[in-house]
């Protein structure tokens, strides 16, 4: 069988046009698509930028004096009063919010302008500013009372004022909401917006970052989608070589050597498997080097990805074997070529190789997830997100099973003597 494998690989390798198509084209396409669509899945901080004015109506000094007076009015012991006042001296609620808004991570999203309330309102109306964050009068006193004296809060909110409920404002509301919410654990304060919407809306157009789950980028999607699509085309290419073998009677010559047909099919299958593996390795390596598609990934991640791609290569090899048997049955090579192109393009569309499966209606998504490329894509994306070994077992079993079924069918329909 090794002679068949070597022959098929050599025949493919010597066909420079096919080599360029199979090895270079996917890389070129991924790079082009990556640049063309790079805005789609960019990080939130790159996609959204918010200009705000921070207006502080609260007077910290007055607030602290009010608090000191309130403490003296309580029935606490002198020692306790002294301790509470010490803590109050170190607590600066307005400063905390200010510090939060100017920390480097948030600064990537938000630019804070220090202008008067009148000017800020004017700029919001003009559209020069996205929003105003207003810290109301009495904020320091309220926070200190709740935190240190366990008093029921009066719900003095941090106001967010905006003209329109834009994505940017939604994002800002989330930021502030999340921050204040985290302070609520200690401060038990609420925050409300005074914009036309009340519920926080997640930023749109960016990627959702959930703790413990990594996200996948457009580059990663295209790398997986395009490489799997071109691998499917490789099955067609190898199978269509049989057209020439059939036309030139090489297949007949092989049969006359008393070779078992299974060797012929296995040669096609194994050589396709090897070629797809080579194609995948070259594509992923080149794309990683050019675009750093999978930055900072662990060795475990790469091993998992290799395992997924090996399972997919097996499926493509099975398809190649099936295509080969079909070619031997068909008398017209154009029919064979047309049929295979149709099948592969169908798999490409359904399997999400042209656009993500999420863009398809639910029923097509379900079907697409069962196509070899769709299943591989879904599995690879899951692997990027969760890196959970248990997610691999089922899809890899399915991919291997598809490969075995394809090979079994190709054996069963391999033409009898005199039918080639």
């Amino acid at each position, binding site marked *: 069988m090794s002679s068949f494998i070597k*022959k098929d690989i050599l*025949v493919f390798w010597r066909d420079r046009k096919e080599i360029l198509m199979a090895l270079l084209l996917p890389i070129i396409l991924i790079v082009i698509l990556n640049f063309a669509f790079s805005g789609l899945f960019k990080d939130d901080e790159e996609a959204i930028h918010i200009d705000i004015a921070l207006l502080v109506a609260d007077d910290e000094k007055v607030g602290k004096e009010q608090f000191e007076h309130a403490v003296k009015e309580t029935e606490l012991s002198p020692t306790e009063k002294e301790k509470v006042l010490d803590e109050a001296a170190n607590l600066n609620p307005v400063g905390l919010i200010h510090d939060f808004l100017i920390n480097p991570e948030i600064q990537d999203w938000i630019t804070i302008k220090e202008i008067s309330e009148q000017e800020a309102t004017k700029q919001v109306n003009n559209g020069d500013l996205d929003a105003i964050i207003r810290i109301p009068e009495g904020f320091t006193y309220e926070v200190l009372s709740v935190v240190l004296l366990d008093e029921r809060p009066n719900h003095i909110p941090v106001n967010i004022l905006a003209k329109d409920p834009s994505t940017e404002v939604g994002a800002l509301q989330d930021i502030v909401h999340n921050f204040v919410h985290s302070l609520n654990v200690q401060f038990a304060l609420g925050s409300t917006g005074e914009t036309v919407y009340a519920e926080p809306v997640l930023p749109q157009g960016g990627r959702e970052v959930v703790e413990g789950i990594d996200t996948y980028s457009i580059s990663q999607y295209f790398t997986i989608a395009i490489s799997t699509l071109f691998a499917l085309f490789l099955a067609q290419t190898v199978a269509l070589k049989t057209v020439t073998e059939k036309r030139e009677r090489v297949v*007949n010559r*092989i049969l*006359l*050597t008393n070779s078992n047909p299974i060797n012929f099919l296995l040669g096609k299958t194994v050589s396709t498997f090897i070629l797809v593996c080579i194609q995948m390795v070259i594509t992923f390596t080149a794309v990683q080097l050019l675009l750093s598609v999978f930055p900072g990934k662990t060795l475990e991640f790469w091993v998992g990805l290799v395992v997924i791609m090996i399972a997919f290569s097996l499926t493509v090899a099975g398809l190649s074997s099936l295509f080969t048997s079909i070619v031997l049955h068909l008398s017209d090579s154009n029919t064979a070529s047309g049929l295979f192109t149709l099948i592969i393009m169908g798999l490409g569309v359904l399997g999400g190789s042209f656009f993500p499966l999420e863009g398809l209606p639910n029923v097509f998504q379900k079907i697409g997830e069962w196509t070899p490329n769709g299943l591989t894509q879904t599995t690879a994306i899951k692997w990027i997100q969760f890196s959970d070994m248990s997610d691999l077992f089922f899809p890899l079993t399915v991919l291997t099973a598809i490969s075995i079924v394809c090979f079994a069918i190709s054996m069963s329909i391999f033409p009898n*003597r*005199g039918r080639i």
Partner: protein
Amino acid sequence: MLETVKLSKSFKGKKVVDEINIYLDAGESVGLLGPNGAGKSTTISMISSLIRPTSGDIKLDGKSTIKDPSEIRKVLGVVPQEIALYEELTAYENLKFFGQTYQVKKDILEGRIQEVLEMVGLKERQKELIKTFSGGMKRRINIAAALLHQPKILILDEPTVGIDPQSRNHILETVRELNKTSGTTVLYTSHYMEEVEQLCKRVYIMDRGKIIASGSKEELLSILSTEDTIQVQLSNRSESLIDTIKSFSNVFQLDETNVGLRIISKKNSNLLSKLVLASEKEGIQIVNYQVEIPSLEDVFLHLTGKTLRD
């Protein structure tokens, strides 16, 4: 050694090979002659086990090969009409691949490859890709690939179609040598009569799926022993002279050719004197008069009414 018994093949109800009986004795060189569409290639495909006959049998040393073709495949080397090689591989890589598929033992395969390359005169070009070869060179490698497993019987299906005279001579010489020195039995099909005349001791003539004549060259030529074929070139064409010649009692057939007339008449019928008289009467000169020595081509023409390349 090898024989076909009432071998027939039909495609979609049309009989393309009709109950033919052919035999090959060990060491013999046999020709299978016939025009395009005569059924030669189908016959070869059946003998070599590529297609199943509709009826009849093929026997190797008295044993049928229809059900289990593995034995005949072992002893058979088939050179197909097409260049059944991988164009993207070198001559050496092709031979190595086919040698491996023939299961030639690893330790002798290399030697065999060099032997067959030497035989077809392409040893120096073995590292070159087949696609860079001329048609004649490709055909020589096509033959070499069929010789790797040292077959006892070599079947060649029109191996010299469309090649240069040098390669053609080389191929004919190779086949002759194989038959003479290695005792390889040869079944050679062609529509080039002269090749078959040169190579084969016995000839089968096939037309429309049937064997219409067979025997040694002499036996076949004896079919024409009662006839003379005369080529006549006249100064002018004359319809009335043609009619007069046709009316001669010993003339069986008259055809107009591009150089004059071709007359088939009874042997030694002294046609010349009658022809001189008739042409003088018409005022036409006889420019050339030639009694042809009959060839297998003439036999074929006699039997089928057409030439081999029709």
